[in-house]
């Protein structure tokens, strides 16, 4: 019986093989992710659109899932169009490391041309059940973040040392900002043609636009000191505005704020800085660069 089945199958395959295809193909490929290509011996520094010069010492972000769409997203719905390729596992990217790392699970889907990609973020909002185990410093002290950033921001002589987690929590969710909207990049721009011979899918994350909407002074508890005491150290008390630099802060008399020297500023999920940084993470242009390797 197996012989007969085999013979019939050979005939049938020959017949089918002469007839064409249904079009398209299913594909799968590895996914590699990392920071932008750069000289790691040099500090990673950039200037934001707010005028802050930021030097990052550490920056990690949790991304995923990724959904590559043939259409730009519709503004009225949170998920639309036709997804042709997906990577459903969440993964951590060290954006300061230019070496591409393999992402577990890779990507799969069908051949086609994608023009936008939906990128998910890690969230602790109760309606989601993200299961990835986050390493430190993304997870520590009972907190878990979508991203962890640490470094120094300078503007007009004011230097703010910062370190902390950008979080997506229930506190950010509202009717105008539902969790589906808050926890993803709706449609990052891409231009990818997936074929059966496509190489690995590569993602490079550029954090230089993460803080374009952020004011680092929102991390600082005090504002600019009206020095008039000749610069004597007075704990920041107003001294009549003599223009001298107050030796208790890192801010010159004309700086945007007066952070305390040696203090590393963190933030909570309700701090405006968290929302501003999250907005930067969700940038649709210039932040996430997808290519197909050879």
């Amino acid at each position: 019986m197996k012989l007969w089945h085999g013979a019939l199958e050979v005939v049938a395959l020959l017949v089918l093989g002469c007839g064409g295809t249904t079009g398209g193909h299913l594909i799968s490929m590895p996914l590699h992710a990392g920071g932008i290509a750069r000289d790691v011996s040099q500090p990673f520094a950039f200037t934001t659109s707010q005028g802050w010069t930021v030097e990052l010492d550490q920056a990690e972000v949790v991304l995923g899932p990724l959904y590559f769409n043939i259409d730009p997203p519709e503004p009225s719905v949170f998920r639309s169009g036709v997804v042709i390729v997906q990577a459903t596992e969440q993964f951590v990217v060290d954006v300061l490391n230019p070496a591409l790392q393999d992402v577990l699970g890779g990507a799969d889907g069908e051949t086609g041309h994608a023009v936008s990609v939906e990128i998910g973020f890690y969230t602790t909002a109760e309606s989601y059940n993200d299961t990835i185990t986050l390493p430190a410093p993304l997870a520590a002290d009972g907190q878990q973040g979508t991203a962890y950033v640490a470094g120094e921001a300078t503007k007009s002589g004011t230097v703010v040392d910062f370190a902390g987690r950008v979080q997506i929590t229930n506190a950010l969710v509202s009717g105008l900002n539902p969790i589906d909207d808050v926890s993803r990049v709706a449609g990052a721009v891409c231009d990818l043609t997936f074929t059966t011979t496509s190489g690995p899918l590569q993602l490079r994350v550029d954090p230089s636009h993460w803080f374009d909407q952020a004011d680092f002074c929102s991390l600082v508890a005090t504002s600019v000191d009206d020095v008039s005491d000749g610069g004597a150290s007075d704990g920041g008390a107003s001294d009549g505005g003599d223009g001298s630099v107050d030796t208790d802060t890192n801010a010159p008399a004309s700086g945007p704020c007066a952070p305390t020297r040696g203090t590393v500023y963190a933030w909570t999920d309700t701090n405006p800085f968290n929302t501003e940084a999250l907005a930067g993470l969700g940038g649709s242009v210039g932040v996430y660069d997808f290519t197909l390797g050879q």
Partner: protein
Amino acid sequence: MHQPGCRRHRLGGGRLVGCVISRKELSFVFRIALITGAFVLGDEGAARAEPAAESAPPVKPPEVIEENRPPYPSEALIDRPSGDVAVTATVGPAGDVNGVELTHGIVPALDRAALNAATRWRFRPAERDGVPVASRVQLLFHFEPPPTIAAQPSAGTPSTPAVPSAPRQIAPVEPSASQPAEPSAIDVTVRGRREAASHGASDFEITVGHLAVIANQKPSDILQLAPGIFIANEGGAGHADQVFLRGFDAEQGQAIEFTVNGVPINEVDNTDGHGYADTHFIIPEVVKNLRVIEGPFSPHQGDFAEAGSADYQLGVVDRRLEISASYGSFKTRRTLALWAPENEREGTFAAAQLFQSDGFGTNRASTNASAMAEYEGEIGTHGLWRILGTAYGTHFQTAGVVRADDVASGRVSFYGSEDPNQGGDAQRYTLSLDLQNPSDMGVLAQQVFLTWRTLRIDEDFTGFLLDNQTFGQTYHPQRGDMIEQDYTAFTAGGRGSDKLVGRLLGRPQSIEVGYYARYDHTTPEIQRLRYGTQIPYAIDENLTTDIVNLALYAEVDLRPTRWLTLRGGVRQEYFDYNVLNQCATAGEFVQNAPLNQTCAPFDNSGPRLPTQRSTATALATEPKITALAQLSQPLTLTASYGIGVQSLDAIYITQNERAPFATITAAEAGMIFHEAYIPVDLSARAVGFYTHVDRDLIFNPLLGRLTQSTGTTRDGALISVRATGQWFDELASATYAHATYDQDGTLVPYVPSVIARSDSTVFGPLGRWRLRGHRFTGTAGFAVNFVGPRALPFSQTAASTLDLDASVSIRWSFLRIGLLAQNLTNARYPLSEFFYASNFNSRSEPTLAPTEHFTAAPPFSLLATVSILLDAESQR
């Protein structure tokens, strides 16, 4: 026994004399006058009986138990000879005909028909002193050609092929003590229905016969006997079967016009698909024939006959009272009661069945009950009428599709289910009345029918893919994609025809005109249900439709030469749509609204009512023609061409749409071979075909139903062979089909490229064993079904499958025991495969890209049946 008008005949060299009743009958009926006599043979089967002596032991001549009356052979219709053919049949001690000999013939065609028919007669054997002995009888077949040349009741008309009626009376043969019994003349008036005329090599008249042992569990088993048919089912036991035919994925019958004794069963605007045809209400034991015309080549074919038509013709040939009980794998239980009174016509019967099963794997339990009753009576001297009533109800669970990656990971078993909340219910009630009354000019036929149908189906193809949050809404959790389809339909209609016969060019010619009328009032509604509940949260569709389909046709049957027949005509089809969309604003919403409003009182332009009506009409003209050229006695070449139409789903109707139907253009060429090599009857067919559809329907898993697609083209070939003998029946076929989209030439997915099938049965007495005077008879069957690789989306290919079934039954007197085994090798394979995106929470994040889904084919199963049969056999 003498009757008025009796004329005595001496035939051949036999001593037998008898009566031939010559009675003027209607021109289209056949007369068979039988003379039986007891040439009682000795143990050696001597040819003649000795004159009886006073001391000779009492002799009882053989008595007829089962007759076989030959229809007037089609090959003789050219010359139309008439007369008597005498056949001497040797009846063995078991009552079977062991040999036949032509005693007096007319022409080879009639002689062959008589000889072939005689081999199938069965007798209560002659007895000498109470011991069965061999004997000889003379059978006299009187042939008279009909004036109506093979009328054409194709799918959708109330007529069935000519079948002899039950004899009015069978005169018992009374033995005398001293000499062979005086033979009795058995005069039979054959009052039959119009014989179906062939519309080419793809016009198949399938008589189940002995193949019932292997192909009679469900109505779809009978349908699979037609070449090129492949049956699948992804919706559960109560869901209509998915039918593939000649490159068409007819889904649940949408591309095939299904009728039962002419009553249409395709459902207009069904929520699961326009043209949905559920045959589960048919009790297979009351199906006598199935006529399948592959292609739109008959003017009798109407809406939905895209790939062809299938007409289940009801009747019980073996008159009996039967009570059966079956039990098998997965706690399958079936009870059948069938009553077909002996002295009534084949169209008189009553049957009821109850069925229950846990089904294999997960979530496949089902229960159903069906009842069918028909009475066939006579009008005047030649007419017939029938009244048919059916009732059916079912409740079933559905496993639905499973993701291949979930099965591979072990999250779901091969026979498991992604969503155990799927299933449905259905009811169906039908009443039909038809009559057929021949006259000197032709045959007049009329039928009216009424159907009431309800259906509810819950299906989940995509899991949690589609219920996406909308900006401005209050947050709602993912509620799931479960589709609930609710459908209610009332159908009323009728059909009629009149056929007129005349002579031209010295040969009979005919013309038939007919009409068809159908009205449907339907309320299809599709909602989305919260996962795990019956609570709807959105409406996809909510319609109220009134659809009228009227058709007129004219068909001529011309014989310009002795060897050429031209059969064809034109059908004009009219569709009238009146569609009220109760929820035309489905999906509209307003920012900051608490939730999506279903059937909102506004749209993008402002406030409005949610309802909207659309009306449209269309008129289509469908020419159809078939040419049959009989090159030699057994061989006929055929060529057919036809245009058909299929109405559109009401959801696609827009106001004043000019052509709300799809057009089918088809052509084919073929060959028919039929020869009787007594006692074997051999027939074969070969066909090459082409079909084009300008607007096709393709299954959309996101919507759970058929949706419109672009034009498609199909071509291919088939070959079919059937050989029947005294102890065997073999039916085999192979079909190749190639289906592509016109737009880009890509293959139409899901369609099998090759379908091959073989059904074989052997039957007969089991040796000489007897118990209390009753012999044992047995039947064994074996079926092989091969489905070649199927093209799937994304250039995937489904592997070929090979399915083996076997069955055996033994009968003793009134008791029959049978065993059916399906999927003998317990092959594990996907019955249906699909590629699309779904999200059943099988990963930590939603899966939105396409992947493979499938429904599993049933595993190995056994079904044992015990039947009590009270019929002529049990009384022997």
